[in-house]
């Protein structure tokens, strides 16, 4: 089973990388760009049979290590 975790800074936490990328895109002429967020994607194989059980395990991994709940939110895809 493949697991994918998308980690982003929570809304309200200043994403300075996002701001810098946004300014650079504006500099290249893409003025319609707004609210750029830079996050990270973590992919891995997971040896579980059941999608629900897999999701629960990945959520636990996020809480323990993959994301810092003080500043980050995450989205899990399992399948």
């Amino acid at each position, binding site marked *: 089973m493949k697991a994918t975790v998308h980690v982003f*800074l929570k809304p309200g*936490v*200043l994403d*300075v*990388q996002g701001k*810098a990328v946004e300014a650079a895109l504006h500099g290249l002429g893409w003025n319609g760009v707004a609210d750029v967020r830079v996050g990270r994607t973590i992919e891995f194989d997971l040896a579980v049979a059941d999608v629900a059980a897999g999701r629960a395990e990945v959520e636990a991994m996020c809480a323990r*290590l*993959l994301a*810092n709940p*003080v*500043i980050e939110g995450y989205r899990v895809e399992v399948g």
Partner: protein
Amino acid sequence: MRAAVVVFPGSHCDRDCQVAIERSTGAEVAMVWHQESALPSGLDLIVLPGGFSYGDYLRAGAMAALSPVMAEVRAAAARGVPVAGICNGFQILCEAGLLPGALLRNADLKYVCKPVVLEVTNLQTRFTAAFGDKREATMTVGNGEGNYFADVATLDRLEGEGRVVFRYRDNPNGSARAIAGIVSEAGNVLGLMPHPDRAFEADLGSADGALVFKSVMASA
């Protein structure tokens, strides 16, 4: 008097901390590799030094917080042993949940490396007692992710309980409420972004950092 400095892969201020503690307090300093499952007995201070433990992989301090020795650091902190996390050490203590909040990338995206003037906002802690009535200190910062963040309720609690110990006079990294250093609820765990280990004698530009180590050892 005995202190231990934990050495993680990627620590680079471990020797600075060792020399700073030895010269400012005369304490015997043990260097402890992060894979150790025991700390020396009878410690009066444990220091998590600055650097880039595990190359800042995933998040600064995230991997180091899971190192085997951290279980011992956690247990020692719970027994009341003073623990000081400096720079990357502060990030590790936050990741380990021993201090609240987190350190974000600096607000202007720049790595800052320069002397900063700090306000000593609480002179009654185990880490500041030797400052006497000296309310200002100069130490050097060197960080790219030193922007202290916590939610408003946590910040209010830290300030209300006198746990903000050092504040920047001129905020170099966007830290919430210009916070440079905080202590734990019990007061024996310090997180400090500026380096007392780079300001422990006049030849380094400031000797104010020595007072942090002297404070701990005075109460040992």
